[in-house]
């Protein structure tokens, strides 16, 4: 059995080939000199002695070949020779190199980008001590396959009962106006979070202290922990910052600590204030509200999940839908019936997975596998094209192959050489694809990096590089093996006959099928491609369909220091409505403004919402959006409500099909229920919206 030492020495021998060659030649020459000297001592003439020495011990040339084989790693030498030959052939067939290389680069780039992105989102772990043991605990609606807001009662129950996890905590993200004495107010995202988060993170503050449990109690002094970025940008890295105050919306908070650079738990936060769970019945909808924990020493994710299933929810949920569109309206009977039909249970998932959307762990991995397989199939069309070109070139190289065969090369050796040639091309394409992916990620990082969770690493992982290598190998195999096998099929016969078989290697049935298949595939995808391209370019080419330049839009938000969706949320909605109406009135008085309208979102940027329509199911588990929702509305016997003012429609030049004020009964029992759990103030402010 070859030992590691021998492999290392062989590798070293392969790397120091030239020096070792000189040593070998010197040693064999010395051997022959000694033999000749002996023979001369026995009375032979010098010339005869030299001849006999060579007869007796063999020629040095053959011995050096044997020694070279023993010294290095022969397959590396062979492979390197093929690589050099491949580079030469690529330079010679520059047309094939250009076309094939670009096609492969495009296909590999798509695969690498998708893989790298999914790897980044799904396989990331928190950059904390034992960050892979931090988990999210969710309330999961198995029927609708989505996360629900966690009720405070459930959170308290889990925190008191779970033994497989420690440092159980929760957070909500809210947007506040950060107001400093010498600067304009600026909206910032604030994490309302339990003190356990800082124990879970195991990162001490740079200055002062983290949040503590006492800060969460009702009546405690409002405090805030600020991040390194806020400390630098807003307070000029003031070393005496602890004890000073800042305003978040209407409340003044005392700064008690500064976290070190890079700390942004739970998502991408730079300001942390205590979460006071007694103010509301439930956390905000995920991912803006979530429960987190750390697996206890020795505990597993499966064990924690089993324990959580046993403990369950505090009480059967009464509703799985959130009254976001109609916050003041109590859940109807049909809502309760619908909730009963839902299988709602708690689940524990890796923390970072808790932010990837409404997916089951195995489900998303299966989806990912299928997507990767489909993406891998994208390699086939460009590689089939390259294969045809390679085959055409192989026909031209028949004499070369026949000569090599006659000199002792096997068919496998010739096929292997063609594979390596294409591997060189595909390898270059993979390098370009990785470079393109890195560039794209750098661009994405500069564009969206600050919005992304702090654990997202925009670098290329070893897995991504391996995936690119795999795609390159597959591409080389697709593009080379079939043409190589086809072109060398009659190699032995032509070599033996001493004739070229070029004339007999026409495009056979296989190639006809390939060409026809490609044309068919191109025709099949063309309508979809045209529709997709037109859908993307239509607005740019034709415009939005109205005189967009005559319109201006602005976003209006108010501080919402308490959890919405309940009485205080309704109060906030009322306050927002009053501010909005006042703003509209003022704007209507501004010269040059002909009309003022409001909406939850500007046309074309409507949020996706989950709705259930009585007697109708959506295209995807009851999810309607945009045009589909309008189509349902047109065919629905009952009226639908939209989050827009009447004036929003008329200035845009659209005619209302039906419009009337909602009767009280329709308000109480609407056929359309929003179950998105979305709680933006704009949506809440739509309670007075016309139908």
């Amino acid at each position: 059995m070859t030992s590691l030492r021998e492999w290392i020495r062989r590798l070293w021998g392969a790397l120091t080939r030239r020096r070792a060659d000189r040593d070998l030649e010197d040693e064999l020459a010395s051997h022959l000199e000694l033999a000749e000297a002996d023979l001369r001592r026995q009375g032979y003439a010098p010339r005869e002695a030299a001849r006999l020495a060579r007869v007796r011990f063999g020629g040095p040339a053959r011995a050096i070949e044997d020694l070279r084989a023993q010294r290095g790693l022969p397959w590396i030498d062979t492979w390197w020779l093929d690589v050099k030959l491949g580079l030469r052939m690529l330079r010679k067939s520059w047309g094939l190199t250009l076309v094939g290389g670009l096609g492969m680069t495009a296909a590999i780039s798509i695969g690498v980008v998708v893989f790298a992105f999914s790897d980044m989102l799904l396989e990331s772990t928190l950059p904390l001590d034992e960050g892979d043991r931090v988990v999210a605990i969710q309330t999961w609606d198995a029927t609708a396959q989505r996360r629900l807001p966690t009720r405070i009662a459930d959170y308290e129950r889990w925190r008191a009962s779970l033994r497989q996890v420690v440092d159980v905590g929760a957070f909500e993200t809210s947007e506040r106006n950060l107001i400093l004495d010498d600067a304009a107010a600026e909206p910032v995202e604030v994490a309302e979070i339990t003190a356990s988060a800082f124990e879970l993170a195991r990162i001490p503050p740079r200055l002062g202290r983290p949040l503590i449990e006492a800060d969460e109690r009702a009546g405690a002094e409002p405090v805030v922990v600020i991040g390194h970025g806020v400390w630098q940008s807003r307070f000029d890295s003031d070393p005496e910052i602890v004890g000073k105050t800042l305003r978040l919306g209407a409340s003044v908070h005392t700064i008690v600590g500064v976290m070190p650079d890079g700390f942004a738990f739970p998502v991408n936060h730079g300001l942390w204030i205590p979460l006071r769970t007694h103010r509301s019945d439930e956390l905000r909808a995920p991912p803006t509200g979530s429960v987190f924990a750390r697996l206890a020493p020795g505990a597993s994710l499966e064990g924690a999940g089993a324990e959580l299933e046993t403990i369950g929810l505090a009480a059967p949920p009464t509703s799985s839908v959130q009254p976001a569109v109609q916050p003041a309206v109590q859940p109807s009977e049909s809502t309760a019936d619908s909730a009963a039909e839902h299988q709602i249970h708690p689940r524990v998932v890796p923390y970072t997975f808790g932010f990837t959307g409404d997916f089951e762990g195995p489900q998303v991995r299966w989806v990912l596998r299928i997507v990767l397989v489909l993406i891998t199939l994208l390699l086939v069309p460009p590689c089939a094209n390259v294969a045809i070109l390679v085959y055409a070139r192989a026909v031209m190289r028949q004499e070369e192959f026949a000569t090599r065969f006659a000199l002792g090369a096997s068919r496998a050796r010739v096929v292997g050489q063609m594979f390596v040639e294409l591997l060189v091309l595909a390898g270059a394409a993979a390098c370009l694809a990785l470079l393109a992916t890195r560039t794209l990620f750098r661009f994405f990082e500069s564009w969206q990096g600050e919005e992304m969770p702090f654990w997202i690493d925009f670098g290329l992982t070893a897995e991504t590089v391996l995936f690119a290598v795999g795609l390159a190998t597959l591409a080389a195999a697709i593009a080379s093996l079939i043409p190589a096998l086809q072109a060398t099929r009659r190699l032995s016969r032509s070599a033996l006959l001493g004739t070229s078989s070029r004339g007999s290697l026409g495009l056979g049935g296989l190639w006809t099928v390939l060409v026809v298949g490609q044309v068919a595939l191109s025709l099949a995808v063309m309508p979809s491609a045209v529709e997709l391209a037109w859908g993307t370019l239509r607005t740019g080419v034709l415009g939005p369909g109205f005189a967009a330049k005559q319109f201006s839009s602005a976003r209006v938000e108010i501080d919402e220091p308490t959890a919405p969706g309940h009485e205080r949320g309704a109060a906030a909605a009322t306050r927002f409505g009053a501010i909005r109406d006042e703003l509209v009135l003022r704007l209507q008085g501004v010269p040059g403004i002909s009309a003022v309208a409001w909406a939850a979102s500007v046309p074309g940027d409507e949020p996706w919402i989950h709705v259930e329509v009585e007697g109708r199911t959506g295209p995807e588990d009851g999810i309607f959006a945009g045009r589909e929702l309008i189509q349902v509305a047109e065919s629905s016997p009952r009226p639908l409500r939209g989050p827009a003012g009447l004036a929003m429609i008329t200035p845009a030049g659209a005619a209302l099909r039906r419009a009337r004020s909602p009767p009280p009964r329709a308000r109480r029992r609407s056929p359309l229920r929003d179950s998105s759990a979305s709680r933006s103030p704009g949506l809440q402010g739509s309670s007075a919206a016309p139908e």
Partner: protein
Amino acid sequence: MPADEPRKKTEHPAKTEVLRGTLDLMVLQTLASLGALHGYAIAGRIEQVSSGSILLNMGSLYPGLMRLEQRGLIRAEWGVTENNRKARFYSITRAGRRQLETEKREWENMVGIMYELFRQET
């Protein structure tokens, strides 16, 4: 070979094929007995011991020496012969001596088995 087994000698000894795996053992034993030697001397010693039955050409000897060196059983360094010629001298390492002892035991064991087998059948 057992001492009581008379060796059949001829005037022109027939060349003997080196059994697979035995060249390493021969080289190690030669170096263990005589100390550092260059390749030509090793080949000469084996030829002498085998009474000319085993003639090692360079294509057999040097890959074997390189294999042993790669395995760390022998080491090599350039030196000068007594006739003032430059040559590469090989010497056995501690690992080589251990390997030699192990292989010698195995070889003697195998020879004993073969001898018993042949003796019983005759």
